[in-house]
């Protein structure tokens, strides 16, 4: 079975983002970029499936500018076999990404597709579900456990109020939650080896997908700042302030 993993290049999660002064977006020039943390978990899960003999090949795919090949190389260094770069300079909406992935699925025929549950930049949490709809396949979102048994996969999902277990018929689309696994680090020899692994580049039009916009970002602004608070010196003072000043207890 082939496993397809979709990954995204995003601003490093530990960077404090700055809104541009012209309110058009967030500053990305000279900002450290990284693989989206949820995508790292998806790559790790795919590599583990390969190591346990459940998968034969792990293909990673990313859509974006040429520099997202860096994140694809990282995924190759972590154990993926080959990479597909969907080359576009246009900012893509989740629906378009889902259509591009649908087209890649039709070519590659994977038994399983793994994606992160959300990218930490746009926080949409949409692509996996949209891909499942377009390909008419079952979905296991927010997965914290994935077990392949024959032609089915059992997924434990993190839902409000607890955990839910579903059994899906393969091929299935799964999105990863934080608890699924602990991603490994790439070793230097593996980073060197990754440079020789195949990387294919393809454009949206070659995949037969027309990039259209459904939405328009009118403005990006900073959220209202909270006023700096006061430091109290004792529990008694805290209780007094909560009772008499804030009046919340």
């Amino acid at each position: 079975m082939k496993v397809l993993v979709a990954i995204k290049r995003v601003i490093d999660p530990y960077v404090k983002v700055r809104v541009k002064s012209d309110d058009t977006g967030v500053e990305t020039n000279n900002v450290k970029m990284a693989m989206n943390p949820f995508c790292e978990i998806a790559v790790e899960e795919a590599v583990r499936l390969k190591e346990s003999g459940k998968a034969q090949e792990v293909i990673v795919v990313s859509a974006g500018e040429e520099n997202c090949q860096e994140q694809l190389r990282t995924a190759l260094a972590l154990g993926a076999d080959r990479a597909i770069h969907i080359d576009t300079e246009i900012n893509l909406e989740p629906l378009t990404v889902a259509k591009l992935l649908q087209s890649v699925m039709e070519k590659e025929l994977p038994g399983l597709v793994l994606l992160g549950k959300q990218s930490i930049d746009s926080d949409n949490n949409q692509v996996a579900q949209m891909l499942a709809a377009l390909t008419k396949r079952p979905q296991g979102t927010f997965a914290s456990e994935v077990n392949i048994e024959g032609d089915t996969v059992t997924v434990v999902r993190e839902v409000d109020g607890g955990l839910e277990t579903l059994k899906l018929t393969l091929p299935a689309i799964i999105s990863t939650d934080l608890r699924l696994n602990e991603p490994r680090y790439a070793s230097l020899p593996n980073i060197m080896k990754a440079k020789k692994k195949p990387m294919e580049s393809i454009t949206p039009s070659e995949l037969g997908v027309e990039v259209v916009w459904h939405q328009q970002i009118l403005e990006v602004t900073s959220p209202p700042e909270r006023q700096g608070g006061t430091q109290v010196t004792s529990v008694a003072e805290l209780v007094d302030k909560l009772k008499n000043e804030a009046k919340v207890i």
Partner: protein
Amino acid sequence: MATLIIAEHDNQRVAPETLKTINAAMAISPSVSVVVAGANCRSVAVEISKVAAVEQVLLADDAVYEAQLAENISALVAEIADQYTHVLAPATTFGKNLMPRIAALLDVAQLSDVIQIESDDTVIRPIYAGNALARVKSNDPIKVMTVRCAAFEPAPVGEAGAKVTELDIVIPCDLSQFISKQAVESERPELAAARVVVSGGRGLGDKESFALVEKLADKLGGAIGASRAAVDAGFVSNDLQVGQTGKVVAPELYIAVGISGAIQHLAGMKDSKVIVAINSDPDAPIFQIADYGLVGDLFELLPELIESL
């Protein structure tokens, strides 16, 4: 404008998030239709029919919808959605799982986790873990969106009984099968709806010490929450995680105990009305947003605080 709300429920009671979503939709049109899909869930439809703003309840009551899986409910909603300009659901794990599937079936984009509806096509939603707000305009004929419930009050329940119409669309779900649910039982109020939330982090050290957080929450009649570090260390179950990837809360009082205040955690609680931080590290970022900060050993301070309430 015609708005359709997808009700979240457990086949017996409507989830409070549904009422908040109905209220959010008031910004688009004064009355809404609500679809209730499930099994033996007529009581949910009747409950929703009493909400003042609800004009019509569409009931899809069939065994195939019992587990409320995205695969067939999305197909059901897609069949009726062309009569509406807006389709909304709460941005809970239920809504997040279902709505993008509906949007893709309708070939429209989705607006996720909306905190304000400005007009029938323009909304505000947080991006980058709440560190920026995007004003987004949708050009789609049907606007599909999920609503951040912490940003809205529940819709008032009235006397009026809206019409309950049965839908006879039965779509089996053969690719996905519900196996089981492990629910976390708790006597405390629901985290997302609580007036007071007491959250613990890595600073508590172990699971046993987390009992201090629970005691404080019980004294205040509040819910308990946790940082990712506390969940990963196994102090509490993961459905109590507050943050970018967990729950977003905006209670009247949020007490953060032993939580440093990473960007991802702040994303889930910084709209709380009053924030209290108790931490031994005076440089912890949580103090920059806390209204009241108390620096010290939480193993001394917490028992004292519990005692004095």
